[in-house]
Structure formats: C-alpha cells, structure tokens
C-alpha cells in the first residue's frame, strides 16, 4: 500500500437505525481528480463531512499520507481541517460581504498578514479564477458561474492540499456545467500538488474531468477505475447508473 494517497478503510457511519456508510474502502491518489459518484442519498456528502473532520465516523480509518486522522484529538483534527478546502454545492458565499472580503475571510481568521500581503494573496486567488475585476462586488451581484468561481477562490486562498467539491454541477445548465468542469480541471492543472475530490451524480461531467472514478452504492464502493474503465465496464449497477435506465439492479 502506498502512502501518497488518502486511504479510507472500512469506514462506517450510521444515523439511528439507518446505516449510511457500511464499510467504505477507497484510495484517493494525491495530485489527481477523483470523482465519487452515486445516487442522491447514498452518503456521498456524509463521506465528505467525515473526511473534513466535520463529523466523526463510527468505525474504520482515514489515513492521509500515512497518518490515521480518526485517532486524532479535536485540536489535531482542526489542523487537519486546515489542509482542506471545500467548495459547496451552492457556493455558500457570505452574502454580508463583498467577493474580496469572502476570499480574504479565511486568511483574516487564520493568518496574521499585513494588509498589502493579504491583498496580494486574495488577488492572486481571484486571478486564478478570473475574478480580479469583480472583487468589490456584492455576492448577489454575481452570476451563478461567478459565484462558483469565487467559492473556488475562497477555498484555494489558504493553499490547501485537498480541494473538495460537493455536487459542483447539480442544477446547472449544460454550458454552465462545462464551465464548472473547466474550472475544476484548470484549477487542478494550475495548482501543483493539489488533490481534488468531487462528489457528483452528473455522469457526463464526471467522465470529462475524472482521473479516477469510484461509485458509492448502498454504503459501499462497488466500482473503482478510470473514466475509460467506466465507459467499458459491464458492472450492472454502474451500467444502469451511467446510462440512466430505470430497469436494472438499482430499484427506486
């Protein structure tokens, strides 16, 4: 087993009687885009929250580059959280602040920077998503695509090692979807050493951006492979999901 990955081992989580994760095993390689697909309500978002340390797993291990983070205390867990950036489904920008202040916010909270240095960092992050000229705007003045870009800038500004996207293309039109796909790919290419994890049920987007695809079904990973593997697999569940058919092993 290699250490240049995030490794989930037999990860379990239940809410009351409902078993959401029933032993997830998955390797997320460093420096690549991994997409986890699955139907709504299969525990994809729970997986993200556990990975970020916002929620604790009931069982199993999360090993990041050789360190088991499930054994860490709250204080160390907070440090681990600082290595992650998260892009929320609806961007989740703070609507009481301008775009610039949104991106500056994590820096102001965690790093003691002088104003010129802070400005430089924020503008660099805004530039990487093409929003430098829009920093002074209020969040509600932005289009949907610009909001997503601002959210990526905010997630990137502290130079995280891992960038997580929660359903980045859900509810977007095809052109916006392509735009967000580009954003994810370009961000990955422009940031050396970045590891991206995308949670999605958008198959087309997944096949466009993924270096690795894993499918979560009934609380377990039932498939792992490249985008090409997904296209050619004859795994009945994956096939049904990819083709979006009603008939098959997945029952509604």
């Amino acid at each position, binding site marked *: 087993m290699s250490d240049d990955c995030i490794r989930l081992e037999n990860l379990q989580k239940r809410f009351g009687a409902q078993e959401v994760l029933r032993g997830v095993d998955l390797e997320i390689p460093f420096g690549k885009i991994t997409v986890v697909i699955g139907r709504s309500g299969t525990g994809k978002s729970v997986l993200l929250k556990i990975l*970020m340390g*916002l929620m604790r797993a009931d069982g199993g291990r999360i090993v990041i580059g050789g360190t088991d983070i499930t054994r860490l205390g709250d204080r160390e867990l907070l440090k681990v959280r600082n290595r992650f*950036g998260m892009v929320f489904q609806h961007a989740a920008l*703070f609507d009481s602040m301008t775009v610039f202040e949104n991106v500056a916010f994590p820096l102001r*909270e965690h790093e003691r920077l002088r104003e010129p240095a802070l400005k430089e960092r924020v503008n660099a992050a805004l530039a990487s998503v093409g929003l430098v000229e829009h920093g002074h705007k209020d969040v509600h003045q932005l289009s949907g695509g610009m909001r997503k870009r601002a959210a990526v800038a905010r997630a990137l500004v502290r130079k995280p090692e891992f960038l997580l996207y929660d359903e980045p293309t859900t509810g977007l039109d095809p052109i916006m979807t392509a735009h967000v796909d580009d954003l994810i790919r370009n961000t990955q290419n422009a940031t050396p050493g970045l590891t991206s994890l995308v949670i999605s049920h958008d198959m087309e987007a997944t096949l466009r951006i993924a270096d690795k695809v894993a499918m979560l079904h009934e609380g377990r990973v039932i498939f792992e492979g490249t985008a090409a593997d997904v296209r050619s697999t004859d795994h009945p569940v994956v096939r049904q999901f990819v083709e979006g058919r009603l008939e098959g092993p997945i029952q509604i």
Partner: protein
Amino acid sequence: MNPISALGAWMLAAVEEFGQYAVFTARALWGIVRPPYRLRNLFRQMEFVGNQSLSIVLITGAFTGMVFAVQTDFAFGRFGARGLIGSTVVLALTRELGPVLTSLMVNGRVGSAMAAEIGTMRVTEQIDALESMAIDPVQYLASPRIGASILMLPILCAAFDLVGAMGVSYVATQVLGVNPGPYYARMEWFVDPDDIWGGMLKSAVFGFIIASVGCYRGFTARGGAEGVGRATTRAVVASGVAILVVDYFITVILAPMSVNRA
C-alpha cells in the same frame, strides 16, 4: 396514540429541545470569554442592537409615560392623590415597564432579525462553510450577538426610563395641571437608584433571552425559506413569553432586597 403517551412524548420533546438550547447557550457564552476575540463583530452587533433600536425605544418610552400619566390621573384624581402621579408612574416605569416594554420592542426588531439572518446562513450552507474553514460558527455568530444584547439592553432601558419620566412629568405638570412642587418632591422621595438598577439588571437578562433564543432558532432552522420564516416566528414568540415569565421570577427575587430599605 392515547392522550397520556401523547403528553409524555410532548414533554420529552420539550425537555430535549430545552437541553439543546442550554448546550448551545453554554457554548455561545464560553465563546464570549475565550479567544479569538472578534471585537469588530461585537461592535457591529452593539450598533445594530443599540443605536438602531434607539428611536423605537424613545418613542415607546415617551408615549408610555404620557399615557400612564393620564390613566393614573383618572384613578388618583378620585381621592385627591394627584401629587403622587409622578412617583407612581416613574416607579412603574423604572421597575417594570422600562425593562419589559424595551425588551419586547427590541425582541420584535432584533430577535427576529437574528433568527432570520442566521437561519438563512444555515439553509444556504454558509454555517457549514464557516465550519469547513475551521471556525466555530457558534462563537463567530452567536457570541457577539448575545454579548451585544446583554450590554445594550440596559442602556436602552435607561433611555426608556428617562424619556418616560419626561413624558409623565410633561403631561402631569403642563397638561393636567399638577402642582410641580409636590410632584417632584414626591418623585424624589419615592424613587431610588435601586429601582433603576433593578430594571436595568432585568433588561440585561431579557437581552440575553432575546439573542440566545433568536440565534438558537436560526442555527436550528431547516428547510429553505419556509423554515427560516418558521424559525423567526418561533424565536419572537418564545422570547416574548419567556421575558414575561422570567420577569415575574426576577421581580419576586429582587423585591425582598428593596422592601426594607429606607
């Protein structure tokens, strides 16, 4: 479900809810005293709770004082005790009407705004975003609001007392023709600083109730715009009732301390 088990289920739910509120409030209060201190957030909330509420509090205070002057005159005039109008009304203002009416007015304005703002942040994942940036959302959002309300409500209450007393005095001496000499002499004789301090202490407690309930309802809001609306209504109603209930108990506790003074 039979009525007994329905009652039991309701009781359990109520106790659980109160327990969650208590844990939330403890976290928020702990957040006030531990670093990081975000003074800018505190000042912004003090401005919102205090300065922006001042006009409604002053108008309410002046007219409350004025109308009570007229009503007290109606009653006291029957047995020739009009000289006592000032002391009676000002005692009622400082001890009861000031803190309670100030808090109820501020609750309508501030408690609802806190629940709506935080509730919207909850349903649009902005609170999750704070958490993902390793920031404690309770400390960031609730602590400055609760701290600001505890600090500002007593000041608003004092402002209410002042304009209320001016309202009574104006109506009593200028409109109703009460002799100013005995009027002010009695007021000075009957009203003590403790009456004012007691009222301000009460309003600090009410400020705590308004902000903690408003923030709690916001944090626990679920389900889009409708959920935020429900959270807002519940915050205002719960705080309003709690203010009146708690008021009685504080009064009962404070009363023995002021009875034997002289």
